Each structure stands twice: as structure tokens, then as C-alpha cells.
């Protein structure tokens, strides 16, 4: 990857470059953070971000104001799933829904208190989460996006964002508590 040069033919290249720099490039850290947590290694994350920014530049003419960070993060996410052909499996999510509504595996409040999570085990537990849970947690807790922003980045309904975040946190707690998780 990295040969995205065909993206850059724009007659107003310089002006667009300046606007793009001002509106989009300042969110590069957020873009890399999301890509890094999705890809889980530096090299893939850099490839994803590079490709995503080139795509963003190509589509920048279609960007009609709004939140440039949300817009860029949506492109980063799409780029990641396109490059890795890792579409989050809908079937797996539905299984989790069953588990939730059955209420069979409610967290035992006492067990939640047992371990104070240190940074290293948090990092490892977050990396072990399925990507559809990892991405909502990263967007919410690290990028501090609202539900509405997460919904527009992930192309989910706001209600789905809420339930997925709830399940992501339950899952993370269980990971931290060292429980075996049946997926």
C-alpha cells in the first residue's frame, strides 16, 4: 500500500491543500489512535491512516462542513475494514444480544471489585475485545465522542451504540476479572 498518488489530481490543489490541512490534518492523532486500536500494530495502523487520509483528500470536495473529525474517523474505519476485509460479523453480535436479554450472565457486582486494573492489563484486555466492541470503547473513552458522533462514524443507530457500549464494558470487565468469555 502507500501508492495512493492517483488520488491527488485536483485543479485547485494548493488551496485545497491549505483547507485540508486546517480542517482535517489536525485530527491525524485521532485518526492514528483509532487505526492503531483497530489494527493492533504500528505498521498496519500507519498504512490504514495513510490510505485513509489520501481517500479523505480525494473526497474532500464532497465534505460539506460539519465535524471534520467525525468525517475523518469514519473514513479511517471504512479504510481499515476494506483493507483487512474484516467486516464485523453481524451474527456474532446477535448472539451477544441473546445473552444480554436472557440476563443469564449478569456480572456479579462483588467480582467487579476484586481487581484494580493496571494500565498494562487494561491495554491487553482492550486489545483482546472483538473489533466491534473495541472501536466503540476507543471512540467513547479515548476520543471522547458522543453517542451521536459514534453512530455517524460507525454507521450504527444511536440505540445500537448505547447497547454495544454497554456490552463492550461488560465484556472488558469480564476480561479484566480473568473470566473465560464464551463468544
Amino acid at each position, binding site marked *: 500500500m502507500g501508492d495512493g498518488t492517483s488520488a491527488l489530481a485536483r485543479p485547485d490543489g494548493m488551496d485545497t491543500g491549505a483547507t485540508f490541512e486546517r480542517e482535517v490534518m489536525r485530527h491525524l492523532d485521532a485518526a*492514528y489512535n483509532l487505526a*492503531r486500536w483497530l489494527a493492533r500494530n504500528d505498521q498496519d495502523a500507519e498504512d490504514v491512516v495513510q490510505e485513509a487520509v489520501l481517500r479523505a483528500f480525494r473526497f474532500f470536495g464532497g465534505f460539506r462542513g460539519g465535524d471534520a473529525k467525525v468525517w475523518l474517523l469514519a473514513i479511517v474505519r471504512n479504510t481499515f475494514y476494506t483493507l483487512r476485509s474484516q467486516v464485523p460479523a453481524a451474527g456474532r453480535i446477535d448472539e451477544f444480544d441473546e445473552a444480554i436479554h436472557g440476563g443469564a450472565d449478569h456480572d456479579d457486582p462483588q467480582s467487579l471489585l476484586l481487581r484494580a486494573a493496571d494500565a498494562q492489563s487494561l491495554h491487553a484486555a482492550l486489545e483482546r475485545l472483538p473489533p466491534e466492541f473495541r472501536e466503540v470503547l476507543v471512540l467513547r473513552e479515548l476520543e471522547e465522542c458522543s453517542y451521536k458522533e459514534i453512530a455517524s462514524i460507525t454507521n450504527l443507530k444511536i440505540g445500537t451504540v448505547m447497547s454495544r457500549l454497554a456490552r463492550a464494558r461488560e465484556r472488558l470487565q469480564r476480561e479484566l476479572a480473568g473470566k473465560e468469555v464464551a463468544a
Partner: protein
Amino acid sequence: MNCQDMRLLLHAYLDDELGAAESLAVARHLAECDACRQRFDAYARLRGNLRQADLHRSAPAALRARIASQLPRPARAPRVPRQRWQMALAALAALFVIAAVFAGWQAVELRRQGSDALAADAVSDHVRSLLPGHLIDVQTSNEHTVKPWFDGRVDFSPQVKDLTAQGFELVGGRLDVLDGKQVAALVYKRHLHTINLFQWPARAGAAAPPQTRDGYHVLEWNDAGLRFVAVSSVAENDLQAFERAFRAQPAAASEAAR
């Protein structure tokens, strides 16, 4: 509200994403239910841990530099041999693009000429209005007097606003003709300068750039189905301040009641 409802809602509560009524219901339940409160505390602690754990990864400087070096450069032509029909197709596409660009340019040019003509018309109306006895048909600083005066004289309800507080004194109004249409003209004073504000019903068109003709500044904008053209010899930024003040000011109360 029961503990099953709380399973999702306590997260939305933690994220400050609930409405006032739901927040209150959740807070009440948490006050009464030890199990849910413990769960809530655990997730609040998890959030605190996540945010303190320094998990955010910043873009490496090398990546930033690499992307920046690629961005403004023009494309390289791909060195792929092409079939003849592909070339023909490309030529046809190029023709279409040229035709479309020309049509677009013509449309822009026509619009620009139309806008130029309108500005010239507005300036000459403004100059004529400054001749003795031509400026004002209804002389008053009261917006509630000016507005009813237009009733029956124009077939729309003009926006009349008192901008004295912003330094633009409403001195009156008159009928005028602009672009072949009967329009309402409001007259404002800024120190010794006169500002004519013309307005008439129009579909929202492309915003025209500010113009200067014969030393007069012309600003055009659309609002609420009306086209506005302001003309004056005040400094350009004063006229822009006038536009901002006029657009920001709510219309006269009598207008809302009509």
C-alpha cells in the same frame, strides 16, 4: 425502572447521554438499589482507569511527514498500455467534461452579469434617492409606522428592523423599482451617510460577492424568501456590520402577529 432496564441505562447515564427525566429515574434507582449502584461504581472506576492508563496513541512524526509530503502533489499518469477503445472512450469523456465545464462557465458568467446589472441598478437607485425630496416617502424612526405603510403598496411583507442600538438609525422608507420589480426600500443613517436597503421576494439564489461601483458599496443576501440589497457610501466594513446587525435582529413584533 427495574434492574434489567438499568443494565443499559446506567451506561448512558455514565456517558451523560440521557434526558432529564431518564437521568432522574436512574439516579433514583441507584439511590435505592445497592447492586446497581455497585455496578455503576465499577463502570465509573473502569472509565477512570481507561482514561488514566494513557492508552491514546498519537501519530508518529514520520507518518505525519510522509502524508504531508504526498498531499499537494499532482497525480502521476499511470503507465499502463491502453486498448484503442479505451482511448476512444476517454476522448469522448474528455469532450463531455469540456462541454460541461463550458456550460458551467457560461452559467456562472450569466449569473455574474446578472448580479453586475443588479448592483448597477441598485447604485443608480441609491444615487437618485439622494436627490432632494426623493429619499423618503414615509419619514419616521419607528419601525411600527414604516411597516404598515408598505401594506397595500407592495404585495409582500417586508422586514423592517430598528437598528438604532447598533448605530444604524432607521429614518424612513419608500417604494422603488429595481431589476424591473417594485421593491421596498428602507433608509438608514450611519453618521452622515445614507444606507438604502432594498428588498423583494425572490427564490434563494447564489450569494453574490460584495461589489463596489462608483465609490458605493453593494451587498446582497437572501433571507426568509426575500432578496436584500444594501447600498451605501459608508466604509465597506460598516456596511458589512449593517448586514450582520440586520440579519441578527429579530423582525418587528407586528410582523410576527401578521
